[in-house]
């Protein structure tokens, strides 16, 4: 079985729940468009209906069929995206990363400032910062409780599109053209792709 590329998106519960789900869904949908095998899902353990609780959203991209259908967690993420930058202080977000990993943070701060809070930089290959709230000052808050089954607001219309675009540039997991055709706000995805600050380690 070919290696499955695992993507984990961290966010604050309720207020960033939808945007984080959009990042995972857009990346998976764009990869599916390129003919890859994908999965995208939420983590049910994280009590997602509490405001500000750290929540995780997952995506998996693979060239061959993904066999782990009933594994509900990405144990060895290769790409970690933080919708809420403060989580670098609260949780070991790089847990399980095996090497050559990417960390994409939604912040206006520099990558060096974020690196201060990461004690074990060994598995990390690239760290990138993008100020998604400045590029697209709209974070969709979804109170429908449908957990993605009904997307009335549209998928990828807010900061999620910017972060997905940044992830496409940093990790190269999907091409920007296929991503732009999948998100609701292609300009925001392109700007995230162009304006992300990358630091190689």
């Amino acid at each position, binding site marked *: 079985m070919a290696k499955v590329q695992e993507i984990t998106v961290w966010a*604050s519960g309720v207020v960033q729940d939808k945007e984080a789900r959009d990042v995972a869904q857009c990346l998976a949908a764009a990869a599916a468009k390129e003919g890859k095998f994908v999965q995208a899902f939420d983590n049910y*353990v*994280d*009590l997602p209906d509490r405001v*500000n*609780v*750290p929540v995780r959203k997952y995506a998996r991209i693979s060239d061959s069929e993904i066999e782990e259908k009933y594994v509900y967690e990405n144990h060895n993420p290769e790409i970690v995206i933080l919708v*809420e*930058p*403060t*989580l*670098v*202080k*609260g*949780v*070991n977000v790089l*847990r399980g990363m095996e090497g050559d990993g990417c960390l994409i943070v939604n*912040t206006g*701060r520099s990558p060096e*400032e*974020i690196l*201060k*809070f990461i*004690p074990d930089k060994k598995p990390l290959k690239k760290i990138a910062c993008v100020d998604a709230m400045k590029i697209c000052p709209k974070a969709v808050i979804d109170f429908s409780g449908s957990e993605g089954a009904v997307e009335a607001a549209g998928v990828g219309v807010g900061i999620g599109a910017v972060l997905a675009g940044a992830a496409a540039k940093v990790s190269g997991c999907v091409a920007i053209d296929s991503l732009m055709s999948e998100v609701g706000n292609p300009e925001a995805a392109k700007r995230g792709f162009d304006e992300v600050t990358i630091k190689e380690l």
Partner: protein
Amino acid sequence: MKSHEVKIAKEKLLPEAGIVKAPSPNGEQETMITGCWRVLRPVIDREKCTMCRSCWIFCPDQAIEIAEEKMAVKLKYCKGCGICAEVCPVGAIERVPELDFEDGVVRLEKLF
């Protein structure tokens, strides 16, 4: 005591759920450390603080304590909800982005 009165033990008069038999031994919930939820940290200005204890009363997580004769925040459990800053009558509590501080790193290995 009159003969027709029934003797009932004192604790039986209270509903079972209302009785706290003993305080929690350590007063902390180690399995639910909520400091990692915080985005904005409440910072108490010790000069302005008048020790009215409004923040201590209103804090839903009992994350405010009295340390060195002034109010202080237990950063391990403060979720950063900002209620203390709202209720402070003298405006002594300011909310500062958590990433401005190098301390207060919780870093849980596993969330739950």
